[in-house]
């Protein structure tokens, strides 16, 4: 195994699947970059370079730059999926979902149900998300709770390069619509990634660390924040389990409930907004199904109920950090 970046892991996943199945096509704004221009034709490979190189390998019939018409091309991806292709569409920033949400949540997500089980929609929508890049309120949101809320969608949030590759391959092979969300601060992060194709199943959480004292649930980039906090806490004799659900829809409730049964304490770290967010969602499942195992309040470590600010000092204050997680774990250890 070689060390590879999160970006490269995703790129390999796309290459494997495009090579394996010629129904897999890619479309989005500047997924090549250069359509109709005089210079390089694969100049961008998407806003974050994830699809770079696919044009040369698979040609312009299989990877297409689109106009800035998200409703049309996301809807077209859904329609192509309903008619037998397996499109992977890219929305550069998940924040742009507002201009095409209907095609995602009222069309792609619901056709199977509305049509009495007849539609199959093997669609993947990739998007970057997350704060930390000084991109302000309209380019930094997490927003996966909006997708999680909607029955019919699957929602995937990889936290490391290995999972990113395996989950994306799984997503492309999955026959339901999948929202695949990539934390933009992770693209350059590295990890061991096998060269070949492999899958990481949906609905199975990863256990990043085991400890008897408290359970921390964290997704995406927040897993690293939790890990740093856990190391510090371990120095003080507080041993934490860290669970990375990897997919929030479906959610691996069993793993979470099992560890809560062991530790009796739960802290959820999440960078989505707090109200009707992922932390609230997981908390409520535990408060319903594992109440009697709990020894302390379930604490949520999230941003405030506020948009994402631009200035670094403000954005740092917005995002959950190690100290926030540490404080929350110490608090649940005291049972308070």
């Amino acid at each position, binding site marked *: 195994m070689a060390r590879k970046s999160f970006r490269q892991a995703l790129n390999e996943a796309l290459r494997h699947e495009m090579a394996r199945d010629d129904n897999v*096509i890619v479309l989005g704004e500047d997924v090549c970059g250069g359509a109709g221009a005089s210079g390089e034709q694969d100049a961008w490979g998407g806003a974050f370079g994830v699809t770079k190189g696919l044009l040369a390998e698979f040609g312009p*019939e299989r990877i*297409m730059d*689109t*106009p800035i*018409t998200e*409703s*049309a*091309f*996301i*809807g*077209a*991806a*859904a*329609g*192509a*999926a*309903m*008619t*037998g*292709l397996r*499109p992977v569409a890219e929305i550069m920033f998940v924040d742009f979902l507002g201009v095409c949400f*209907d*095609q995602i949540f*009222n*069309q792609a997500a619901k*056709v*199977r*149900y*509305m*049509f*009495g*089980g*007849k*539609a*199959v929609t093997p669609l993947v929508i990739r998007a970057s998300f997350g704060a930390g890049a000084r991109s302000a309120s309209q380019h930094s949101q997490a927003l996966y709770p909006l997708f999680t809320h909607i*029955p*019919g969608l*699957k929602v995937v949030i990889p936290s490391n390069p290995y999972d990113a590759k395996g989950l994306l391959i799984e997503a492309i092979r*999955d*026959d*339901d619509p999948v929202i695949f969300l990539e934390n933009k601060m992770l693209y350059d992060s590295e990890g061991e990634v096998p060269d070949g194709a492999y899958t990481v199943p949906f*609905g199975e959480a990863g256990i990043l660390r085991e400890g008897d004292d408290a359970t921390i649930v964290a997704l995406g980039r927040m897993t690293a924040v939790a890990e740093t906090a856990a190391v510090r806490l371990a120095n003080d004799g507080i041993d934490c389990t860290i669970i990375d659900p990897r997919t929030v829809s*479906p959610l691996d409730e069993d793993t979470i409930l099992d560890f809560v049964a062991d530790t009796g304490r739960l802290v959820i770290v999440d960078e989505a907004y707090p109200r009707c967010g992922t932390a609230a969602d997981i908390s409520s499942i535990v408060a319903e199904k594992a109440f009697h195992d709990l020894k302390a309040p379930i604490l949520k470590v999230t941003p405030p109920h506020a948009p994402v600010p631009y200035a670094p000092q403000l954005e740092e204050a917005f995002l959950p950090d190690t100290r926030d997680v540490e404080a929350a774990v110490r608090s649940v250890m005291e049972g308070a």
Partner: protein
Amino acid sequence: MQLSRDELLSAYRTMRTIRMFEDRVNQEMSTGDVPGAVHLYAGQEASAVGICMHLNDSDRIASTHRGHGHCIAKGCDVNAMMAEIFGKANGICQGKGGSMHIADLDRGMMGANGIVGGGPPLICGAAMTAKYRKTGGVAVAFAGDGAFNQGTTQESLNLASIWRLPVIFAVEDNGFAEATSSDYAVAGDIVERAGAYGIPSERVDGLDFFAVHEAAAKAVARGRSGDGASVLHIKTPRYYGHFSGDADTYRTAEEKEAMRRDQDCLKRFRERVTEAALLDAVQLDQLDDEVAAAIDAAVDFARAGPLPESSEVATDVYLDY
């Protein structure tokens, strides 16, 4: 384009089926046994049939909230449609969809749609599939005058144009979006607006089955041969109110009377084919009787259909979860 006797009979039968289906659904509404509301297609039959006659099961259409006519024209089973409208387990969507979500993917019918402008993006995708697989297939998006304004439709016109997708946008302009007239709501001219995307675009008389049929023939041929999209702006009347609960007071009684009297595509079809001695009236009357019997049978089928089991409420959300 010369139509064979069988084709003419088939066209008439389908139009009549739509008309009778809608009139009957309207009647059944008053029994209280139809659970939800419906948007009836009566008056617009020539559009659905004139277009869909050119299509086969591997061609796709995307429809609207006013979808029954498109569904019938595209070959959906009338019994299963009626049962769906009655909310029965033997409905075409097992009772989960109702009038606004009738679909039959095996017939290339990608769904009625509760969202105005929901269909055009989806149909671009169906056209992408046809183009990518080089099947020669085409994809038709039906959209109302109201839906034409929706951004999703305008974006789809752009996409279909630059990618030369084998799409036909059939803009059925019945003069109204709910209670709002298209004169008021649609800026400029639909043919010009569509044409300005570089898409061949023409106005078609929706009362004249033959005009629709001919315009559709060109558009379908264009799509099949790889020459890209077309727009048909089809002027057509809407006989009933916008939906089953609409008192339709924004149109005067005289206007509605005149519409039904003077703007009837079925009447025109009959006149034309009988005057030209292509078909005779007796034959057509007999067909009417057959269709009436089929619609009776559909209602019987629907009424006798089993209720869905409540345990089905959460099935078919995913293939695998």
